[in-house]
């Protein structure tokens, strides 16, 4: 048996959301015993799965079901409360429509920053720069600040960076959400190429047709819990039934 590319064992994660968002020193010192009231939001509850290398693994579920939190834990951005995550291979994250751009900087500098963060050397950056900007079809806007970009342009740039770095495992969060038809077609072409190359992809999407078309397996999350896992068409049918039935969880 091969080592899974991604292994998640019993992962739980809660967020403490203070009722009053601002914490000031005054509140802290004047009322040291009256703890600010927190609401504990359980984002993930005992989630376990393993993704073998080369698999396209889909994660579906309604808004607030814990999909993005799970990806952030896989990406090493959030720490788990309990449970273990094992990643075997180089990972490239594309989370919440992006890779952490600075809107005051132009596209060129953002590519430099994010490419470097994702492990490219200066030379690799120089070599791939044209590919990145070319795939995103943003040649004309390379020296424009990102604050003047549309959300579709930002998405194209972020996706282009995420797939041009070295990786074995790609985390994709809602990559099809704001792109137009032609960009979606391009994405689908890259999915095929990644499958050929044996890359592992964790694919979070509301586009159930795309999940059915590309994923080998799918996981349905609801309220932070695993509701179903298995063949995409069955998991999707399960999800659609629940939505149709109006079941709360």
């Amino acid at each position, binding site marked *: 048996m091969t080592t899974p590319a991604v292994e998640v064992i019993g992962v739980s994660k809660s*967020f403490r959301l203070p009722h009053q968002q*601002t*914490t*000031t*020193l*005054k509140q*802290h010192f004047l009322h040291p015993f009256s703890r600010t009231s927190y609401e504990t939001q359980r984002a993930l509850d005992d989630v376990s799965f393993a993704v073998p290398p080369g698999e396209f693994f889909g994660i579906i579920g309604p808004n607030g079901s814990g999909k993005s939190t799970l990806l*952030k834990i896989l*990406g*090493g*951005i*959030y*720490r*788990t409360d309990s449970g273990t*995550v*094992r*990643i*075997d291979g180089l990972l490239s*994250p594309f*989370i*919440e429509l*992006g*890779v*952490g*751009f*600075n809107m*005051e*900087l132009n596209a060129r*500098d953002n590519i*430099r*920053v*994010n490419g*470097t*963060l*994702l*492990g490219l*050397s*200066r030379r690799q950056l120089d070599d791939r720069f044209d590919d990145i900007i070319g795939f995103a079809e943003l040649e004309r806007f390379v020296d424009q600040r990102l604050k003047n970009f549309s959300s579709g342009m930002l998405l194209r740039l972020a996706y282009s960076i995420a797939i041009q770095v070295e990786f074995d495992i790609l985390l994709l969060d809602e990559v099809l959400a704001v792109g137009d038809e032609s960009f979606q077609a391009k994405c689908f072409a890259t999915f095929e190429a990644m499958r050929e190359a044996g890359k592992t992809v964790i694919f979070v999407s509301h586009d159930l047709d795309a999940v059915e078309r590309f994923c080998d397996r799918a996981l349905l999350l609801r309220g932070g819990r695993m509701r179903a896992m298995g063949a995409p068409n069955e998991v999707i049918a399960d999800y659609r039934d629940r939505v149709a039935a109006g079941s709360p969880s």
Partner: protein
Amino acid sequence: MATTAPAGPAGRLARRARLLHHLRILRVIAGVDFKLKYSGSALGYVWSVIKPLAIFTTLYLVFAKVFRLGEISQYYPLALLIGIVLYTFFTDATTLGMLSIVSRESLLRKMSFPRLIIPVSVTLGAAITFGVNLLVVTAFLAWNQIPPRLNWLLLVPLLLQFYVFTLGVSLILATLFVRFRDIGQVWELAAQLILYATPIIYPIGFLPEWARTIAFLSPLTQILQDVRAIVLYQDLAPNRITVADAFDSSAGRLLPLGITIGIFVVGLFIFRRQEPWFAERV
């Protein structure tokens, strides 16, 4: 969560590659910070020299001319300038360092990398500005016909201590600022008080013995007085008041250095401890 590097040559290679990767991140982040700081400003980098010079000129006119402190020593203007330049670096670096984590929220929420790179990057950026300001100080020294001497090399470890102290304070502030936003107000006030609590404008000799001892507990006072002693007062024993004059024992003399190391260690410790939660708390 991250795969642990195996021991042996492969592990060493992996560590080396990781270090290189982190240094590349540091260079790129520092580079774009520099670009952002002066983007859209006509004078750009010149501002980093104008600022301390403008403060110096104002304080010089008020204290050297109006309060006549300039009459006590021909070195007063240079001593003041050195004090202002050091103080400007300290407050700029710590203020930027304090804000550094919170202001990079969007990056923190999407990318995993050692968060320590961020405060190191902004304080190094401030250190480059400080270096440029030191060139201006050197020009003033040359104007006053003070020749450089070999033991100016002692400035190197001294400035290193200064950076370590500044980074330590920045790490503490950056960590606290994620949780308590009014640290920003606190530090703005503290910076004002530090200007007067440190012998920048007035000579430390004006303080009574007991107050001098307290002043020298601050590494800022120790570093400032050491720099002045090395650069200005090599042949002027009466003007040379350093930490050695405030404490009789050698343990006492090492106190500011100990405080520097202590602040740095505490800063590093609390920063590393809180680091995993920055992404969800900023």
